[in-house]
């Protein structure tokens, strides 16, 4: 399984990678902003994309919009500090599988992955 983790914060990318299920194996691509993530998805480097929202250059909402319009099939899980109801609603409408509030914990991630059937 190919995993892409997109967050402008190195600490947050690390926390996602640390929290991934031990049973998962596969290449992990790290992206510092949305455009890098979009390119990784276009290049087929992501079966699952863990996506932050507030980022420079291209934000997460734009990534979701582009993935939808380019019909790129990726399972997207948004992990964001901005978790206002309107944002969550928008994210789900744009085709994300799930939304996780930061700070991320292993339990939160595991629960979400089970909920969406990825674990």
């Amino acid at each position, binding site marked *: 399984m190919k995993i892409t983790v997109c967050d402008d914060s190195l600490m947050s990318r690390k926390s996602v990678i640390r929290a991934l299920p031990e049973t998962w194996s596969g290449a992990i691509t790290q992206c510092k902003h949305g455009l890098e993530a979009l390119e990784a998805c276009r290049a087929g480097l992501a079966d699952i994309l863990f996506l932050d929202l*507030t980022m*420079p250059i291209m934000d997460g909402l734009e990534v979701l919009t582009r993935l939808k319009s380019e019909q790129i099939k990726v399972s997207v899980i948004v992990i964001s500090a901005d978790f*206002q109801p309107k*944002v969550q609603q928008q994210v789900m409408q744009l085709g994300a599988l799930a939304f996780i*509030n*930061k700070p991320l914990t292993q339990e939160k991630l595991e629960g979400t992955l089970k909920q969406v059937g990825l674990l």
Partner: protein
Amino acid sequence: MTDTSMHPEVPIEVDELRKDALQEIFNISMGQAADSLACLVKDRVYLSVPQMHWVEKSDVQDLKAAMKRVPKGIIICQPFSGYLKGEILVCYEQGADFTVIGESLAYTKEQVQKWQHELLLDITNILGGACLRGVADQLNIRLEFGAPNLIDRHSEVTTILLNSSSIWDKALVMEIGFSVQSMSMTSDILICMPEQYINKLFKCIDHLLE
């Protein structure tokens, strides 16, 4: 990452890892703060990516760089203490519409008109409180916050900072912009952490990065 905002003569080095961690901690805390405010204004609160600067009061250019969104407006200060000491400065652009948040906070229509500054103090308290709680939780430290107070109604932030008797000369400043479209509100938040407390702050950060 190029970084022109850091002061070259500052003795304490903020390496990239610490800077990244601090920005993310504030990003998460401000997300929680924005959610608290969003419930009251019944609209989305937009936040900028937090930016960190070393600011020396003697250097006006530092201050201007830190406060680029709202250089002039209504300025409110909220002090905090505990494990870290510092202050939150918020500069609100003039002319926001307080109808919805006024209703949420149980102000009458007349009170909304008359007591706009009190409403801004409330907003500051909601944002500042939630933000500091978020920081304290993540760093596992104790922080207490004082009451916000109105410093000035029409001043440039730079003037205020240069003249104020506040607690610092040089500080690590986290700058976050926020706006609420339905209120026509644009603001700049500066979380000022004086130089003398930075080592304590870094101790917590390093612990988190281990």
